[in-house]
């Protein structure tokens, strides 16, 4: 998100989901959308099959979308910047960029042009393994489309160069005039139901709701006045930094509402040690998950079906959830628990309903100003929606970028932090499968989903499997510098030779025991998509 915010001034999906189905070209990179966001995947497939759109897939894995693609570029994991620079090299060299748009609406083009100059298709082929001719074809196809929508997800962001990768996506889209138009855009597809909303409402260490900076005196003064309390101005710690601080003993207490770092975070041995160092761990959840098992206090929450509220989806659409049934036992809505704790600590929170809280969000958050419950019974509202008569915003940056001019970033390719060597000769990449979700807290308790996907499988390319003498269904051991897990082999063409793929849904084969916690320096996202491992028959 930091990458898009730097380029455009706003870190969200620029265009709406509906536009994906009706555009001329889709470039999908680092997103296995048919498994991770199946209803966006269906849009992409309909765009291709029914509406004649072209599809370019840039992904090391032979994902389902490859079947629908006009062109598939299979880059080596972690070489995204090189590939994207290569596309821009061709576009500029062949004069296919939108010079008017670049001149009128963007800045820093010269620096970009200078940097991408050396990323000739042949040079990029050396780095990424993508044939130079395919790169040229893709560049011409993307630049030639009237409207092109760029989709990406964690395959782009979960690298130490995640922010660079995102900025490169933004560069490519701006270069071809694809930002601020219907059917275009740079669209990060969000993997969790309310990850957008959690960011929008200030669930980040550096901003209040609506991305108002805590370090900004004016913003802080506004919240201090409304909340009637003095507020700290120093940005706080991010998730992985919290774990490290706990490990060092600097962090004493952690209050977790609806998260499971004991399965989702990189290098789990380290996470577990860190959490055990805490004097106080409070976990509020719907199940006794892996993290709650370590807690000192566990607070039972109501789930989405048992309370009122709103979620904000990937396209910034704020939608209602509605209480349909009672919560089990004496479980309560998360907001009720937080309010009770706050009141007990001497700061009374007297909201009578989720709607009361939304009223405060409306006042404190300009982009949510007009998003009131009475307006949410239909199709919801996409922010920015500043006033009660504002219709919401389908696509951003229409005549002007949020930050004024779109900013090109000149970016050099950097290899991943940990590459294969003789001891750990394979790349491990991680992600989700269709039938499960995140740490499996919910999906592993579903009868149907477990029928379809009862165990963690490690995907191995047939050529590697042959070399390792591993056959389908055999137990294998995967070891990195940080740990070892066992899983069942699935011999399949999906991962490229030299790369194995695992999901992170199963505690029995917790892939994050292996992953590398090396962080992107700006986005602070760990490099979950590339680490070095060895693979053996167990």
């Amino acid at each position, binding site marked *: 998100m930091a990458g898009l915010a730097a380029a455009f001034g706003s870190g969200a999906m620029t265009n709406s989901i509906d536009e994906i189905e009706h555009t001329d070209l889709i470039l999908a990179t680092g997103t296995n959308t048919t498994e991770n966001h199946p209803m966006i995947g269906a849009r992409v497939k309909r765009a291709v099959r029914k509406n004649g759109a072209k599809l370019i897939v840039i992904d090391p894995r032979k994902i389902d979308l490859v079947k629908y693609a006009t062109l598939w570029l299979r880059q080596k994991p972690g070489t995204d910047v090189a590939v994207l620079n290569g596309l821009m090299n061709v576009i500029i060299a062949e004069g296919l960029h939108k010079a008017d748009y670049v001149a009128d609406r963007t800045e820093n083009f010269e620096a970009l042009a200078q940097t991408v100059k050396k990323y000739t298709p042949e040079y990029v082929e050396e780095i990424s393994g993508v044939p130079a001719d395919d790169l040229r074809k893709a560049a011409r196809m993307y630049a030639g489309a009237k409207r092109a929508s760029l989709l990406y997800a964690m395959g782009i962001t979960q690298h130490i160069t995640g922010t660079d990768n995102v900025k490169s996506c933004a560069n490519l889209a701006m270069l071809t005039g694809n930002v601020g138009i219907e059917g275009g855009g740079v669209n990060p597809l*969000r993997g969790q139901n309310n990850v957008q909303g959690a960011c929008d409402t200030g*669930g980040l260490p550096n901003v209040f709701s609506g991305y108002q900076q805590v370090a900004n005196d004016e913003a802080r003064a506004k919240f201090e006045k409304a*909340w009637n309390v003095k507020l700290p101005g120093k940005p706080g710690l991010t998730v992985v930094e919290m774990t490290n601080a706990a490990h060092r003993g600097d962090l004493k207490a952690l209050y977790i509402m609806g998260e499971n770092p004991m399965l989702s975070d990189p290098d789990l041995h380290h996470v577990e040690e860190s959490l055990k160092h805490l004097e106080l761990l409070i976990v509020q959840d719907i199940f006794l998950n892996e993290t709650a098992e370590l807690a000192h206090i566990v607070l039972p929450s109501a789930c989405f*079906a048992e309370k009122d509220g709103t979620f904000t989806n*990937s396209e910034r659409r704020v939608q209602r959830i509605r209480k349909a049934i009672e919560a089990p036992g004496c479980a309560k809505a998360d907001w009720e628990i937080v309010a009770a704790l706050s009141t007990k600590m001497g700061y009374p929170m007297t909201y009578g309903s989720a709607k009361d809280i939304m009223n405060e969000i409306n006042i404190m958050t300009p982009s949510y100003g007009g998003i009131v419950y009475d307006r949410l019974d239909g199709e919801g509202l996409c922010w920015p929606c500043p006033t009660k008569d504002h219709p919401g915003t389908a696509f951003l940056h229409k005549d002007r970028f949020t930050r004024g001019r779109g900013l090109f970033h000149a970016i050099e390719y950097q290899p991943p932090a940990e590459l294969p060597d003789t001891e750990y000769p394979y790349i491990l990449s991680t992600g989700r499968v*269709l039938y499960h979700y995140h740490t499996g807290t919910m999906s592993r308790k579903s009868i149907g989903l477990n029928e379809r996907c009862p165990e963690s499988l490690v995907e191995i390319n047939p050529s590697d499997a042959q070399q390792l003498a591993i056959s389908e269904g055999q137990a294998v051991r995967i070891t990195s510098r940080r740990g070892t897990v066992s899983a069942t082999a699935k011999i399949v063409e999906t991962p490229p030779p030299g790369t194995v793929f695992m999901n992170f849904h199963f505690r029995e084969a917790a892939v994050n025991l292996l992953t590398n916690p090396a962080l992107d320096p700006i986005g602070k996202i760990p490099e979950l998509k590339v680490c070095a491992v060895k693979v053996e028959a167990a």
Partner: protein
Amino acid sequence: MSNVPTITIDGKQIEATPGKTILEVARENGIYIPSLCFYEGTKNPGACRVCAVEVDGARSLVAACVMPISPGMVVKTDTERVKQARKLVVELLWSSGDHNCLTCERNGDCELQDLVYRFGIEKPRFDIDPPGYGIEDTNTMIQRDLNKCILCGRCIRACNEIQINEVLDFSLRGSHAKVGPAFDADYINSECVFCGECVNSCPVGALTFKQARFMGRPWELKKVKTTCPYCGVGCQLDLNIHDGKIVKVTGNREYGQPNLGSLCVKGRFGIDFVNHPSRLKTPLIRIDGELREASWDEAIGYAAQKLGDIKKTHGADSVAGLCSARCTNEENYIFQKFMRAVVGTNNVDHCARL
């Protein structure tokens, strides 16, 4: 002169958009024409013929779902000839299947049953002769009873044109024709990804939600519109509630964006975690190394006291909080407010990065 073609349906003059079908124009103008195989957003096959209408000058009855309008067209939807034709279609469909409404899950929510009732058919003129297929019972999510299938092809189009999963098609011919995955495989042994779009599109009881069987009649279910708790698409769906429990999840095409009524396997079949017996039901406090049940007063009191003590001893920045991409906007908002205003730290984050 206006370019808008005018047509007449049942004596009513209607201005219509060129390219539309008789069925579309009639429905836009509140004129009833029944249909079974028609499924919005997919190609009209004109298969079931229950939408038969009379068009002046046409040699025979025409299927309203596939006949485009033309200027000056005169359509009659309610003549004796039309009624007899539609009735015949429904009688034939009824007699060629095992439509036993007594135990059918779709009783009260079945398009064939509705037409039988609307046309006042006591009994079909023909012997009831179901094909005698075995009921497919090999997975936990979708039950297939092809004896109730009316071969409308809606599931096939839902699979191929809406979800583009390209699993279902017709096989065999004539009275042996049937619908299913390649090589007559069961769903569980096919490429099916269990999105359930086929079940949502089925007008009769051939495809049903298996876990919802015998859990509540259609008219007993309360539908509550809400947002799916899984990925970031934010699909709108209906929780079907009976006796205080979620019985099944259905899509609703009237809800529009962002999912236009479609769902994936997680939204459709993955919501049963809500009813799982291992849900947390009471606060727990660790005493002597073990988590013991506690009251809310005890748990909140203990949490408040410990947080207060740690803040006092080590400073506000020795405390951190993780809010959640799974919780609501309202909850995340007050969580960060709590961390900032009450604890006094900006150490608040969530797993957006993971």
